[in-house]
């Protein structure tokens, strides 16, 4: 008797055959992230970032932040755009942004990748403040949400390349970020991230700790009547200079603007080889302990 009662309690009642079931929850671009911007979720995220995610990321990626004053004086809300080399990029940005920006920031994340399953969507939204962005097609819903959040005073972090680079070289920028910034009339700030591809690139199966650079550009205030394409071109020019600066130094990047196009004109092995040479200094250092003289994993995968 008790057992059958238990069964009755635990088993969902069957649906009558004539009753049409509708899906109560949705995923992808339709995933509702409103919960992640409620006070309890924000407090949780703030604590997790402050005491767990940011310290660990700094340990792994050892970032050098260049032009920090830009961040300190940035007027918010703003759209922050960056090149995209690795999953580490989001974490790295969050760990260097000042608290004032970070705690009121949402991140545009690929709806197909981060919101394909409910659990994944929930965690992305809760821990990173991610919102789903449709990257394969123009989505009214994604841009409406972005606009709405900017208007409410949230900062928006976007990767206009639309996805991680397959080979470490930058890709074509999409104009969506510029379009949103124009629509709301907020500044757009380019930031160049250097070195995360070597730490955890698209094909890397394991994480390799190392050093990275985060270089802030200058905020661009859109003028009314500007076309999104024109605005994103300004962003592109800034990123091209910052990219050269990451490989050389401030002066060389501006005095000898050659090579290092953003994105490069061709994508052969030479471009990767020459372009990323600064990532492989002759003398290597590792933060891992050396066992039996080993300094790099060389065994079976």
């Amino acid at each position, binding site marked *: 008797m008790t057992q059958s009662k238990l069964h009755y309690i635990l088993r969902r009642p069957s649906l009558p055959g004539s009753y049409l079931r509708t899906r109560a929850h949705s995923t992808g671009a339709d995933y509702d992230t409103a919960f992640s911007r409620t006070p309890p979720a924000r407090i949780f995220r703030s604590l997790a970032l402050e005491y767990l995610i940011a310290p660990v990321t700094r340990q792994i990626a050892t970032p050098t932040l260049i032009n920090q004053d830009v961040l300190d004086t940035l007027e918010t809300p703003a759209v922050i755009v960056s090149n995209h080399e690795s999953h580490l990029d989001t974490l790295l940005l969050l760990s260097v942004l000042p608290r004032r920006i970070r705690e009121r920031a949402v991140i545009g994340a690929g709806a197909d990748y981060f919101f394909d399953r409910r659990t994944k969507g929930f965690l992305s939204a809760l821990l990173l403040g991610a919102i789903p962005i449709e990257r394969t097609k123009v989505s009214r819903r994604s841009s409406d949400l972005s606009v709405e959040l900017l208007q409410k005073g949230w900062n928006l972090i976007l990767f206009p390349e639309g996805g991680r680079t*397959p*080979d*470490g070289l930058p890709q074509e920028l999409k104009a969506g970020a510029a379009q949103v910034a124009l629509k709301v009339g907020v500044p757009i700030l380019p930031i160049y991230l250097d070195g995360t*591809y*070597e730490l955890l*690139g698209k*094909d890397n*199966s394991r994480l390799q700790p190392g050093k990275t650079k985060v270089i802030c550009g200058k905020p661009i205030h859109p003028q009314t009547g500007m076309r999104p394409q024109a605005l994103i071109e300004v962003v592109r020019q800034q990123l091209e200079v910052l990219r050269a600066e990451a490989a050389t130094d401030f002066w060389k990047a501006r005095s000898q603007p050659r090579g290092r196009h953003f994105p490069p004109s061709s994508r*052969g*092995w*030479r471009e*990767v*080889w*020459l372009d*990323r*040479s600064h*990532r*492989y200094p*002759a003398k*290597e250092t590792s933060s891992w302990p050396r*066992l*039996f*003289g*080993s*300094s*790099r*994993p*060389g*065994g*079976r*995968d």
Partner: protein
Amino acid sequence: MTARPGFVLEVDRSTPPTLFWYGENFRLERLPRSSRILYPPEPLPAIRDVRTAIENALDNPAGDQKPLDALLFPGMQLTIAFDDVSLPLPQMTAPDIRSLVIEAVLERAAQAGVEDVQLVAALALHRRMTEGELKHAVGKRAYNALKPRGLLTQHDAEDQANMLEIGHTDQGELVEINRRAAESDLLVYVNINLVSMDGGHKSVATGLASYASIRHHHNVKTMVQSRSFMDRHSSELHSSNWRMGRLIKDAGIKIFQIETTLNTNTFPDSFRFLQRREWEWDLRDRASFVAANGALAKTPPALARQIFHSIRSPYGVTGVNAGEVEAVHDLTLAKVFEQQLVRVEGQTDILTMGLPFVGPYNVNSIMNPILVYCLSLGYFFNMYRHKPLVRKGGVVIISHPTRPEFDPAFHPSYIDFYEQVLTETTDPLIIEQKYEETFARDPWYIHLYRTGNAYHGVHPFYMWYWGAHALDHLGGVIVMGGDPKTVRRLGFKPASTLNDALEMAGSIVGANPTVTHLHSPPLVMADVY
């Protein structure tokens, strides 16, 4: 501090016990009085600035060859072949010398505007390298730039479509090598010359060849006539490779050979007692020997193996030579001999040797019984010039546990060879005639060789041929501390202690035999007069 030369020690009553490798462990054995022990020269001083040495070699090639920069031009096809994971042993601490050379070559190619570059691991019939091993060998920078574009490849001796027949030598040997390498405007070969067998024309003629071509020198007849295959001027194996190499050169294939030599600084500081002479062991050496020996004896073999295979050797680079193959190889050999050669007067009745945990064919894997056979009778026995260290009809005593363990992923054909061939016969000639063809053509082995990380089906046969000269020469082989059933299947005799082994050997070579011990590590080569 200059390196002290090698020498031959005569054992007397005050000589401390001698170190023997014993697989994933060591043992200290007291050799009988007036035995001789061959100690190799100490590690030669290493080049401080290897990168500059490489640049110099590329700019100042040996022999009839232009500097590398003069050979590079935009629009050319460049192939860089490199030695596979079987060298050096154990693997080097990063950066691997190959990666430094490859980076230097790629840098120049990039500056010269060469778009069409391909890296090829010169596997011959060895197993394909794992991604981690590749990354270690070519370096992360080259790996990241070339791998995603499919420009980092591994030679496939069974890919008939990508083989090019160069022709036949005057002895009728077929020469057939990697099509990409043969059709390139320039083939750069990056080698590590750990022992004197490596390098020279063997690099391309064997490393990039097909089974049909390799079989012309990897056979019993050639191996019995290679005395030894470590001495290229008395080695039929090398004569055949040199004939092939000259044919390749005459066919107009441009090869820029870069050979590198290492010193014998094989073990990191935690195992430094391994490369010191026993009477010079200080308190720390003695303590770490006792601790390591005791702990390893209680460690399960699989774990002990993992520990040893994670060792990376702090080898120092002693030479980088580039240019025309034969001119380069002469310079290389001189350097190898300088490091490894010890002059010995007269042969011996009994030769003793300890086998380590690793040989060329079990990097990151198990030293199976067939590899024990090959390392002892193939490699160590042949570490001589002029005359074998042991006399005709003499005995070799090996120290190794010889457990019947195999790696099914790397050595699938070895298991079948052990179970299906060695149970029938151990005679290399019969094995070659009766079984080689079946194993070499077995489609499953070929599949695993081409797509997995397995040695080619014929590879265990080569292991067996490698020992053919020794089998022909010796009166008996005794394995001290080996698993008796396994040792018998190899055609050897098991003994539990060195004294038992010496008694057994005495019954073969006669009373009061002379004993010589090949002290290893590090590598030593005997120059016997």
